């Protein structure tokens, strides 16, 4: 009889573990509502189409970094012909807010904070600084 207790106890523990997302979300009242991202007020179009930025912004940022730092190439011609400066703080963060744009989505999908912020500073934190 004691073996049955071990087996059923173990099975119960396993089932509780497997259904962890179900009861954890029930406790925290999680909804499928995605986070509200604050869209830039001063611009209509990003440096690339929204679909592309949504999935591949990290690739664009890495490409910018590599070409700017290694090849001294600071100009980026976007898909609609507009030319941007390849600057993270100077271009990206002029429209987007770290706290209300980047972090909200990164926190939501659990994409951990990238190491962008090891070097770059959120311009919102340093008022009046030149980018």
């Amino acid at each position, binding site marked *: 009889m004691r*073996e*049955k207790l071990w*087996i*059923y106890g*173990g*099975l119960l523990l*396993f*089932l509780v573990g*497997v259904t*962890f*997302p*179900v009861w*954890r*979300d*029930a406790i*925290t009242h*999680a*909804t*499928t509502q*995605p986070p509200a991202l604050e869209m830039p007020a001063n611009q209509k179009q990003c440096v690339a189409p929204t*679909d592309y930025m*949504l*999935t*591949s912004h*990290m*690739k664009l*940022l*890495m490409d910018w970094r590599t070409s700017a730092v290694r090849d001294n190439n600071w100009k980026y011609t976007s898909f609609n012909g507009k030319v941007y400066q390849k600057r993270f703080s100077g271009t990206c963060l002029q429209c987007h807010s770290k706290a209300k744009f980047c972090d909200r*989505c990164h*926190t*939501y*999908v*659990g*994409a*951990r904070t*990238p*190491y962008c912020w090891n070097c770059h500073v959120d311009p919102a934190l340093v008022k009046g600084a030149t980018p």
Partner: protein
Amino acid sequence: MKPLVPLFVILAVIGLAYGGGQLADTRYLLGIVLPYAAIATFLLGFSYRVIRWAHSALPFHIPTTCGQQKTLPWIRSSWIENPHNKRGVLTRMALEILLFRSLFRNSRAQIEEGPRLLYTENKWLWLGALAFHWSLLVILLRHLRLFVEPVPRFVIGMDTIDGFLQIGAPQLLITDVVVVAALLYLLKRRFTDRRLRYISLYTDYFALFLLLGIVITGILMRYFFKVDLEGVKQLALGLVTFSPTLPAAVGPLFFVHLTLVSLLFAYFPYSKLMHMGGIFLSPTRNLANDSRRQRHVNPWNYPVKVHTYQEWEEEFHDKIKNSGLPLEKE
């Protein structure tokens, strides 16, 4: 060609899911109906099999041992290899489940020139299995970030450690590399070792191809053909909060991944993958070797009516006495 059929089955599933991921009706089927059906099959099937095992008869203690049994106090016993109490059994089970100790003892028999039979140790299976299983566990736990909101701290910590090489963006995860390498090794040994190829069955290849399919589609989605993570999280969260939604932005590659995962979950209870539950219920591992120290009564023994010598002597006492035979009582 035993590996070909499972390979084609997996490829067909991938093809169907890729096509199905592009039509509204089949997206609903693959994205919502199939995962629910698969997880229900998994939970019910898993429980059913464990309960069936729990009811099987266990008349004897039958541990496999490979060390000195506990006997006299001055003979040192090996309490893990030949456990005589619960502590030994628990230690042995923990080491088996967490570190695959029995695979560590794996040996290979070869016939050398002479001819002479040579047994050499072979740790590669142990290493491959350990690397694969632990990576799979980490990958599974990392996926909690898509199912749970807010994301638990340990999941993010796991992601940080996993990506600590900081290669590229999204960062290369060590387990992604390890799991592919380990799976390819486990597949390779079935192909290259003649004896192993002979005993490999359809199911052996099917499980490996299925897992490889899952891992490869996952890697493709993370590093190469990006999907909208926000949409994926919405879908995953919707499934576990029982308010399923189908985001439009999620591409067909995601549906291939999800279909293969559903297939894995549904296939699990019917297959050799049940060793996940079975290892806990292996009588050759989870019993103490105490048959000589404790009486184990066969549970299905019915009461036998016995007539002991003492009773017999009592019954024929006078007759034995009269014939001059010795009596035990006197």
